[in-house]
Every structure is written in C-alpha cells, then in structure tokens.
C-alpha cells in the first residue's frame, strides 16, 4: 500500500517536472520580452541590460533553469516582475481562496453527480431516466465558462439572487487571521460572514462543478447499472430491502471506484477552470493571478504558479489513490 502510493507519487512528480521544463522552455523560446513590458519608454539599452541581468534573463535557458530550480528547492521563487512582490507570499495569500472554491465545486459536483446517478438508477428504464440522461448530455456539452456567464445573467441580473463578483462583501468588518475565509468563519461560528461567503461563492462553485457533476453522473450510473445485476444485490433484494437502500447501501460503494478515477482525472480540469471562473466572477484566487501573470509575461510568477498547480495535482492524485484503498477493502491488505 505504502509502496503503491510512493510509486504513484514519483510518477506524478516526474510527469509534472516534465511539464515544468516544457513550460519553462516555452516561455523563453517564444519571441517577446518581459523586460520590454516593464520599462518606461526611453530607457537606455544599459538599463534594459541591467534589468535582464537582475532577473537572470541574460543567461542561457539551461543555465536559467538550473538557477531557478536551485532557488526553488530552497523555497525561493523570486520576485514577481509585474507586481514587484515575493512570488511565494503572493501565491500563498491567494491560494486559500482558490482551494476553497475548488473544494466547494468538487463537493457540489460529487453531491449532484451521486444524487442524479442514484435517481437515474431508481427510475431505470422509466421516463424520468430519459430526462436525466438528456439533461446530462446538455450539461456535458457546455463548459464551465458558459455556465458561469449564464448564471451571472440569470441569477445576477435578470432574477437578482446573489452578488456576481468578489469573494466577500468589502463592507463586512471582520478580521480574518488566515486567508481560508470559509473555514475560519465556520470555526469561529460567524453565521453572517458565512452567509455572505456562501452568497458570493455558490455561483462560481456551481459553474465550476456542473460539468464534473455530469461526468460523475454518467460514469457512476453506468457502473451502478452493472453492479445492480450482481449476486449480492439479488441477495439484498431477497432479504427484503427496498430499492433505494439497495442502490445506496449495496451497489454504490462497489460502483464508486470508476467514478472516483474519473473525478481524480477531471479535477485537473476543474483546477484549470478556476482560472476563467475567477476572472469572470472577479474572485481573488491564483487563477485570476495566473491570467494577469500570463498577460504581463511575468516569468517568475508564471513559474511559481505552475509549480503550485503541479503540487495540487500530485496531492489530488495521491488523495484519490488513498480513497481507492478506503473503498476497496481488498487493496488495504495488498
């Protein structure tokens, strides 16, 4: 079990080091000069050279990579060119917002996906199943970006239900110790703050989670369908259990593994989706930061963000592997 997890971690890390190298090289070989974007017009050639040297851009790409990697392992990712702040502290201050958003979206996706898969199986081969399948097809075809805008239009403007930008109402006077606003408000029992965070958060979280919910529904419904003809399900019927209890109590746990796999894979896309969703809802996370970093060609910040995303992915992959073990008792002793 431990060896299995370790192997998966190493695999994931190797892939992501590959990604880091590809991106590192890519941002440097493509024409365009980050220094050109930050200097005032009329700066002398000597000034430009000085700045290039300051950010290490005058060396070869290989040399740059090793210098950067050498600093990175000590936790030093340099200074953001466009924001003139330490990259690590910049990312750390924004990361909690994104983590909370992604976690909320995943939770919503899992909840919706499981509920609709179970309902579909309960109504198997009857009319409501067709409605669920049809609706699911539409949700699958439309990406989070479109959902976000549609929600803004529907629940922000035409039928105003909730605020459509930001993470929290700036008028709320509450001193947060951490940047995990939601967790902190929850722990400190601040109902009013929690309600405001919820009002701001449900739309981006739902937009982000809906496509994943549709994928979970489809995969889980398929594997539930298979599980429902297993002998142990027949045994449960013969014991006199009702259909809901059989689906949830007997089939679900065995059918969950394929759905979990796909959730793990799709989580990458969900985290990638935060980039746009945060932009659309002016939500102050690392996704929003990433777009600005890319547009300003802020190399240190881009690199720092990529490593951040990479760490998140490794962490998620490992969590998924641990969940397998929890769901499948056979693995625990393997």
């Amino acid at each position, binding site marked *: 079990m431990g060896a299995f997890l370790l192997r998966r971690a190493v695999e994931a890390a190797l892939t992501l080091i590959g990604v880091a190298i590809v991106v590192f090289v890519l941002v440097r070989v493509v024409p365009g000069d980050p220094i050109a974007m930050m200097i005032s017009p009329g700066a002398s050639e000597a000034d430009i050279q000085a700045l290039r040297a300051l950010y290490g851009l005058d060396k070869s790409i290989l040399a740059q990579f090793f210098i950067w990697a050498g600093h990175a392992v000590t936790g030093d990712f340099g200074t953001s060119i466009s924001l003139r702040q330490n990259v690590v502290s910049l990312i750390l201050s924004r990361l909690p917002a994104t983590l909370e958003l992604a976690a909320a979206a995943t939770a919503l996706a899992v909840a919706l996906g499981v509920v609709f898969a179970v309902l579909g199986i309960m109504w198997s081969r009857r009319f409501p199943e067709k409605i669920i399948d049809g609706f699911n097809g539409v949700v699958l075809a439309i990406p989070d970006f479109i959902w976000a805008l549609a929600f803004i239009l529907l629940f922000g403007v035409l039928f105003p239900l909730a605020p459509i930008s930001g993470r929290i109402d700036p008028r709320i006077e509450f001193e947060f110790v951490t940047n995990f606003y939601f967790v902190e408000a929850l722990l400190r029992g601040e109902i009013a703050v929690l309600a405001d965070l919820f009002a701001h958060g449900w739309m981006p979280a739902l937009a982000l989670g809906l496509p994943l919910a549709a994928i979970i529904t489809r995969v889980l419904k398929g594997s539930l369908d298979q599980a429902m003809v297993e*002998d142990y399900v027949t*045994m449960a019927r013969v014991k006199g*259990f009702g259909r809901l209890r059989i689906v949830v109590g007997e089939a679900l*746990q*065995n059918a969950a593994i394929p759905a979990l796999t796909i959730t793990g894979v799709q989580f990458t896309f969900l985290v990638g989706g935060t980039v746009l969703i945060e932009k659309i809802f002016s939500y102050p996370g690392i996704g929003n930061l990433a777009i600005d970093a890319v547009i300003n060609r802020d190399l240190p910040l881009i690199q720092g963000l990529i490593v951040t995303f990479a760490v998140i992915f490794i962490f998620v992959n490992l969590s998924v592997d641990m969940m397998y073990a929890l769901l*499948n*008792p*056979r693995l625990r002793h393997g």
Partner: protein
Amino acid sequence: MSNTVLTIANLHAELRAGRKTGPGILRNVSLTVHQGEMHGLVGESGAGKSMIARAILGILPRSILISDGSIDCLGRQMVGLADSDRRKILGRDISLIPQDPLTALNPARRIGAQMTDVMRLHLGWSRARAHDAALALLNEVHIRDAEAVLRRYPHELSGGMRQRVLIATAFACEPKLIIADEPTTALDVTVQKQILRLLREMQNRHGTAILLVTHDLGVVAKMCRSLSVIHSGMIVEQGEVSDIVTRPEHAFTRALFAATPRYDRPADALSPVPGEVVRELEEKAATFDRARAGLS
C-alpha cells in the same frame, strides 16, 4: 392443508420479448412443500428449476413473465404481489441460500453488517442484539472465532466459510421456508459434503422447510423425504423419495439415476440420459406450448 408452507399450482411462465411471447419456460408446474420438510427439486441445467426458485422469490428476469398459475406461500399469493408487501415476506418468512457464495456477499461490506442487517430490518433489533444473534448463528454453523469473522470482509474467508455464513444468515429471522439454490455447486467436492451435513443439521434444529434445488439426484436421495423431478419446464415425477428411488416411474428419472455418480460403482458405469427419452419429453413440451397458443 394447514401444514403446507408452499403450494405452487399450475404455474406457467413464458419468455417475453416486447409484445410477443416466446416458448414456455415453466409448463403447468405444481409442487407442495410441507412444514419442516426438505423437498428436493431435481433437474438438469436449463430444465427450469432455478426459474421456479426465482418465481417464488419474485426475482425473475424482466424478460420472463408468469402467464398463469399461483404460488401460495404461507397463505399469501406471491404471483402479482405488490413489491412493498413482498419485501415484508422476503428475508423474514422466506430466505435464500444462494448458489455461489463467492459472489453473493458484498465485497465492500463486513460479514457482520451483512448478517445483522436482515435482523435489524425485519425484527427491529438493535445493533448490539443483532450482533449477539449473529455470533450465536456463527457458532451454530461451526465457525470458530466468530467475533473476528464478523469483522472480516468476504475476500478474507474461504468459499466454504462464506457458504456457512450465508446459511447462518438464511436462518437469522427463523423463516418458515428456505430456498437453497444449488448450495454446493460452486464449492470444492470435499467441502460439499460438510455443507450438506450442516444444512441438514440446521434444518433439524430449526424445523424449517427447505426447497433444495439441485441437479444431483444422489444428494436429494440422501437429504430429502420428497422430491420433484423437472425437465423442459415440466414436472415429470413427484412423490416420496423412498418410492421413487426404489421404483422410478418415469424413464427420465430412471435415466437421471443411471447418470448419478455413486461411490460404489466405477465411473464408466455412468450412462447419459438416452436420446429417445429426451425427445419424448420435448414433444410433450411442444404439445403444451401448442395447447397454450390455442388458449390465448
């Protein structure tokens, strides 16, 4: 009769595809199981014996339709019974010992949970009380270290152990009727005898009626007092085991006996069921189908 637990009368079942009905799966099946007796239902694979078991439990495949006849179990009509009413009977008054203990236990749930759930559902017992009852049942089926077994997952037990667990579970709510559907087919030969002995022992202790579905006439001869022989969906012979074993009336039953391996005879003495016997039976089956086609 007041001491019957199961009466099947003139049961017909057909394969159904859309509007069309196909050939008969069960043809005019009648069968009675008395309180506390073990009744053998014997036939080759595909003869329809498992379909009878499934019809009683109401778990026939969607494609098979009961077209006529009745299944009376403890005074209740099982054919066409509403699902909610059936659920009150299943598990409590009737239970099943399945064919394959390897697939009949949920791989993701502990043995204890799978044994106690049925008692908690039907008898309304607390977790603790059902747990104690499960311990007692495991002792009855001669499982040592029962406390530890309750905490295990199915894959940690051998096939024979799992079948013992399933037998114990079948007796959990003191049902009036247990359907044992080929309970030893999937097991090792060495384990088969132990399981049959255990089944007999449990039946004697609890006084439960058992419908033993099997392809092995030898097993029935040893275990049961009465038996029904089924072929092509028809009951071809029925009565006391002692009568039928000494003078089988139907050529098919004679043939089945001849095909049953016995320890006191060499293996090459086995003879397959003669072709003309099978043909005769199939003609009879076809006559049934024609007659029903004329009826409807």
